[in-house]
């Protein structure tokens, strides 16, 4: 009994410290998506003015592995990400569809004319309905969608060279098989 009285507080301290240590390493901004392996939400988004006449519908995304990218003309990080999207577009490996989130569609269209347009289909989502259906917490966010239209992965923040090479590309290859 005597010895336990000394060891126990130390043991409790060590266990609590380990939890705190782990807690420090977790990123509170990283919220696991509950939509992984779920079908993409029902979409029927109008087009950006002057870009095309179709917009973005659920059926457009199904049929092949694709990326769905959330962007907006107001989004600073999207400007940083954009060259990478253009590069992916050039490789022709995977189609990228865009959702112009919480944006004036005219501004979204102007932004694409200025920065380049890497997208296959783009839908305007001025009132955030599509973004919230995707469980979006910020822009940019990118979803990997498989042939059947199921969300397989969500990347929060800009796609970098590293993330493309190490995470997205291998996954797309695997899903395309």
């Amino acid at each position, binding site marked *: 009994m005597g010895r336990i009285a000394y060891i126990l507080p130390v043991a409790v301290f060590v266990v609590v410290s380990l939890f705190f240590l782990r807690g420090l390493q977790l990123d*509170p901004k990283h919220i*696991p998506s509950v939509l992984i392996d779920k079908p993409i939400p029902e979409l029927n988004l109008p087009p950006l003015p002057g870009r095309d006449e179709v917009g973005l519908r659920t059926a457009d995304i199904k049929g092949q592995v694709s990326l769905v990218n959330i962007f907006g003309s107001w989004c600073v990080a999207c400007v940083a990400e954009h060259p990478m999207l253009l590069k992916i577009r050039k490789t022709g490996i995977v189609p990228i569809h865009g959702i112009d989130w919480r944006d004036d569609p005219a501004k979204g269209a102007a932004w694409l004319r200025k920065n380049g347009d890497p997208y296959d289909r783009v839908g305007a989502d001025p*009132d*955030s*309905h599509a973004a919230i259906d995707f*469980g*979006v917490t*910020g822009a940019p966010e990118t979803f990997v969608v498989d042939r059947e239209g199921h969300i397989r992965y969500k990347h929060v923040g800009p796609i970098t060279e590293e993330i493309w090479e190490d995470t997205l590309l291998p996954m797309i290859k695997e899903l395309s098989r």
Partner: protein
Amino acid sequence: MRRALLPFVLMILGLAAVTPAGAVNPDEVLDDPVLEERARDISKGLRCVVCQNQSIDDSDADLARDLRLIVRERLVAGDSDAQVMDFVVDRYGDYVLLKPPFKATTYVLWFGPIALLLAAVFAVVSFYRGRAAAPAKAPADLTDEERRRLDKLLKDDR
């Protein structure tokens, strides 16, 4: 005396009438006060995923505003409070609930503190029980050898 108290009473009553306004903008408020009240209640229980420790009712973030509007939209469309909650949880997970749900994955959260308290009570009780059950032992009698030495010492002293 009574007269002097009156301003203070009025002041305290005045403070009691003040309620925090939250972040709800006038253009978001529904015309139907009953629906608006329900929307406020639901919003207070939903976490803003951008600022995390605020409810969407408190938060000025754009996404919080979007969610407040969607909550109101669902209510106007005739959803029950539970349906509105489910709508948001389906998209953002249990994480958006400021009050964690009671289910298998959260048992540790709900029962942990009670279990720790019970363990502490048990430890304290058994500690004092153990002390009471074993009273201090009377010192053992001296051995013959010790008695001889003691006698010798006492004798030398004289």
